[in-house]
Structures are given as C-alpha cells and as structure tokens.
C-alpha cells in the first residue's frame, strides 16, 4: 500500500478510538463506560479552564 504516510497521530483522534472504541471486556480491572465519560468531561473541563480567558469567535453572535 502506498498510502501510508504517517504523521504524528493527534491525541484527540487517538482518544476518540481508545476511549470510545475497541472491544469492551470486563477484565479483573476495567474502566467502565461511566469512567470513560468522566475522563472526557474532566479533560474538557481541564482544557476549558485553561482557555477560559480566550473567548470563542462565535460567542458574540449567540
């Protein structure tokens, strides 16, 4: 295949797949879906708190 020209995979693309995709197996220790949702929320909260000062370009239109 000639189409493989890999750049560094973006973390968001990876997390879309690793936290929402893949086979879900109840291991001895497994993240439950609820935990995964929490991760997403926490990540979003984390990032938005960092970027709180920077307003969205769309905000003034709402």
């Amino acid at each position, binding site marked *: 295949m000639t189409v493989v020209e890999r750049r560094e995979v973006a973390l968001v693309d990876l997390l879309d797949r*690793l936290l929402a995709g893949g086979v879900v197996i109840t291991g001895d*220790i497994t993240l439950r879906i609820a935990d995964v949702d929490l991760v997403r929320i926490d990540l979003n909260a984390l990032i938005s708190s960092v970027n709180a000062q920077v307003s969205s370009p*769309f905000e003034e239109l709402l």
Partner: protein
Amino acid sequence: MTGLRYVYAVCRPFGTPLQSQLSGVAGDPPRALTHHGLVAVVSHVPERDFAEEPLHAHLEDLDWLTETARAHQGVIDALTTVTTPLPLRLGTVFRDDSGVRTMMEAREEDFQRTLDRLEGRVEWGVKVYAESEQQESPRPAQKAASGRDYLRQRRMQTRSHEEMWQKAERFSTRLHENLSAFAEDSRLHPPQNPALSKATGRNVLNAAYLVPRANSEEFVELVDRTKGEVPGMRIELTGPWAAYSFAGETI
C-alpha cells in the same frame, strides 16, 4: 506474581515475532499469550499504577493518559503490520495470565466472529471543519453609523453564519453518504472540541470508515477529490487505523 496483565488486543496467531524494540504500556515489551486458536497481546504492568484505584486516578492526569494511549497505539500499530488485531478498550487489565485465558475462553466465539469480520480491513478517519469567514479574512467591522445600521450589520453577519452552517451540514451529509457507500461500515464520533484538537474551524463531521486494505488507495483518492470542492470546508484524513471503531459486537 509479576504484576498485572494489560491486554492490548486479541488476534489470530501470527508467525512473525513482534518488533523487539517495541516498548509497551509501562515500558514492558508486549508478549503473546496463546490460548486455543487465539493470541492475546499483553504487557506486565505494576499494581501501583494499574490496580483499580491508581488507574482511575491516573485517568485524570493528561500526561499519563497521553503516554499510555501512545504506548497502546504503538503496540496496535506494530500488530497491524503482521496481522489484523482486534483492539481492546484502553485500560483492560487482568490479575494474571490465567485471568486473561479465562476471558479468551469465555469470549472465543465472539472474538472469532469479529476477527472474521475485520480480517484485512482498516479504519480511516475523516473529519470536516467549517472555517468561519472571520478566521479566513479578518476584516475590521465597519463602524455603524446608527442604531439601525448596527442592527442591519448584525443581521447580515448572523445570516452569513447560518448559511455557512447549512452549507457545512449539506456538505458533510453528502460526503458521509458517499464514503459510507464505498466503505463496508461507518461510525460517527462526536465532533471534537477545538480546545482539545487545537484545530481551526468548527468540526462538523468526525467519522470512521471500515475499508478493505486492498481498497484503501481508492478510498483515499475519493476523499482527496472532495478537498477544495466547497470553499470554507477543510477535510482531514487520518489512518489507516486498526479497526478500533468497529471492534464492538454490533454491526
């Protein structure tokens, strides 16, 4: 006891050994654990990081999560060069080898069926971003001469944005239909948060397509042809990925 077992993927036996320089999650090179006709690819991981409590705590640590996700992906990537792996969700951990074997035994039929379905297929990610005109051509807002003038400007601005979203939605819908018709299966992921992706424009489509490896070139060309078709729409292609988005039991 040498720690816990972190499982990356289940696959059919593959003849080639894994790259020896591959460092897995927690720096432990992945090894193959064979049971009946299946192979689980596992790393030995320490309890202090992968037992239930520390694992949950680590998930809130973006640096830890990044490192672990990249290590997981590194192993899956290496596997895709020798076989078609069935990737497991991040953070699937067992107490010991026998726990892994018991799981493989219990799910053997499911695994075989899913592996059949995914054999020789890869996943491609396609994202569409609508780039706002403000970002494309930042032009200073004209000073409104009057209240009425101001309201008119606001109305025009709002209307042009509405039109752009409609255009973006039409474009994404059509693209998704075309790509789905070519692919064997598709999944829609939620649009990405621009703060996380650091991408410009608004993510209006975040989809995954299951494509036979042999048809991948054609699929990539199909995506490439739509680039630049509609002004203001940016298309990003990622992959080939292992079939993460299609590893669930549902079809």
